[in-house]
């Protein structure tokens, strides 16, 4: 890469404060000149008009809303590298129209997310967090036999979406004796039964794991009808995006015992979590961390840095977002 002393480092504007910059900011700065609006006293818009008019590359988080008016502020932009795997924050057709390439986190989070989905499912079924709290509160000596939980093996698990994450969840749960089926836009060359319709999938299963992207078609895909079809022994696990589930209807179903429990890493309005869930012991709640490990962050740094390097060296991006 460019020698820091002899050449101007290529400029990259950083937005949404990808907080992993706190860990890797120094390494990035060895190869790139980072424009960091939050370090300036100028308001963001002014910073952009003053300093970012010739910037070709952007590094942004999954929270940065990339829409036409946003993009119009960056006349020289040619590539956006986002730290997110999900792309629901980006207007991809506008990027395409403007000739801006996009690279995302690809599949580097898939293992950690799949691990978390399985961890949440075992926790909900076997009451791990609830029982841990029971012990820590000193309740065991008074109640020697803890209430019985539910077996994981033999559960009929329906995966909503069977991409990189869904396939890894399937492989893991099969080892526990779970029976896998899935719903997806298209049938896949896998040995699991396929259902084109989520409601049908829910009828046939007693666990749903949400593993799909958030799009206009999947917003509130999981609603009261689907949850009722899942049934009173049903468990739902969401490690994808909050808005895929109609949160109000999920809360109602949980409160009324229409489903047995839930493991949720994502919510419709993070970091807000419906109050009612905070007092339920048949749910396990997580602050959008399914992807977040020391290892995945190291991988993320290498991928983000690699993508930017590839761009500046006129090489193909490492994790381009492909046209569907």
């Amino acid at each position: 890469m460019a020698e820091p002393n002899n050449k101007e480092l290529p400029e990259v504007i950083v937005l949404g404060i990808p907080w992993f910059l706190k860990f890797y900011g120094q390494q990035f700065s060895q190869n790139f000149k980072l424009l960091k609006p939050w370090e300036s006293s100028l308001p963001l818009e002014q910073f952009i008009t003053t300093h970012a008019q010739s910037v070709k590359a952007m590094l942004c988080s999954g929270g940065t809303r990339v829409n036409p008016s946003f993009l119009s502020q960056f006349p020289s932009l040619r590539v956006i590298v986002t730290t997110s795997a999900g792309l629901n924050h980006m207007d991809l057709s506008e990027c395409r129209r403007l000739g801006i390439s996009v690279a995302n986190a690809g599949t580097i989070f898939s293992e950690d997310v799949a691990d978390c989905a399985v961890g949440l499912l075992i926790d909900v079924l076997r009451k791990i967090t609830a029982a841990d709290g029971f012990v820590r509160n000193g309740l065991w000596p008074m109640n020697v036999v803890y209430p019985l939980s539910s077996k994981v093996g033999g559960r009929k698990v329906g995966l909503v979406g069977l991409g990189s994450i869904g396939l890894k969840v399937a492989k893991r749960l099969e080892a526990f004796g779970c029976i896998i089926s899935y719903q997806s836009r298209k049938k896949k060359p896998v040995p699991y039964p396929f259902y084109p319709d989520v409601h049908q999938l829910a009828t046939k299963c007693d666990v749903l794991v949400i593993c799909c992207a958030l799009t206009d078609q999947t917003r509130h895909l999981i609603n009261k009808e689907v949850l009722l079809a899942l049934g009173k022994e049903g468990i739902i696990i969401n490690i994808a995006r909050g808005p895929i589930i109609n949160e109000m209807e999920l809360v109602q179903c949980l409160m009324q015992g229409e489903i047995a429990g839930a493991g949720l890493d994502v919510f419709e309005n993070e970091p807000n979590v419906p109050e009612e869930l905070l007092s339920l012991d048949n749910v396990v709640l997580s602050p959008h961390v399914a992807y977040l490990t020391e290892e995945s962050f190291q991988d993320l740094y290498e991928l983000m840095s690699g993508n930017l390097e590839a761009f500046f060296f006129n090489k193909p991006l490492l994790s381009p977002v492909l046209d569907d």
Partner: protein
Amino acid sequence: MESIGVLMACPMSSYLERELDKRFKLFRFWNFPQKSEFLNEHADSIRAVVGNAFAGADAELIDSLPKLEIVSSFSVGLDKIDLNKCKEKGIRVTNTPDVLTEDVADLAIGLMLAVLRRICECDRYVRKGLWKTSGDFKLTSKFSGKSVGIIGLGRIGLAIAKRAEAFDCPISYYTRSEKPNTNYKYYPSVAELASNCQILVVACPLTPETHHIVNREVMEALGPKGVLINIGRGPHVDEKELVSALLEGRLGGAGLDVFENEPGVPEQLFGLENVVLLPHVGSGTKETRKAMADLVLGNLEAHFLKKPLLTPVV
């Protein structure tokens, strides 16, 4: 069979209690605070003892039940039964293997994920409102691909290995002698196993030889990034050493379903976020406890009907 006296050592399953009540003359040992009085009065009618992981049939109890013919354990572990005494006196012993293998293995993996990914801690973080006030939770430790070392490669050990393999975890193990039909890496000592894995799980029977098999040396070999999972028996681990290793950061974390002195748990562990503490629930699902209870009942009936025992140990 309603006149056959069955002594249940401690509360373990209301379903099992009800069924024993229906079929036999059930004595609930915990309802008699004066044990010697109880034994004076009823010992002669007791022909069976039903025990579990907490309380079974030690030499003293066996000696005080002259008509004892069978001990049927509501567990697979036999450490609470004086097997030699039973053999000596021709007393049959049964346990509940196989039916609980999957649940225990599931819980072992659940504990690994809960410790490494701080699942319980994350739930507390959200419930306390910290996600709103303190922002993002910290980075945790990836589970997939971490090396898993198993002490004991019996039914439960193999089931744990099978599950961990689905997460691409390399598997190694320690047993008294190397097993012929596995591809897993064998280590001839627990300390060597601990030096060469990131997650160590106890899955062997508790015997005098395996008491404190996880000692200070093993914990230091496992190290400040290592995680210990115990789904065996509390006395497998030197608990005092474990507490200081965790408090001093010499051991990275622990997922514990069993303790040396249940239901007592060292209180110093309550404030640690790198431990998960469970009240001995390894086999504690509705499905499995019913299967275990049916096995206990089936063994008792078989014995008193002079049929072959279902799952005899002695």
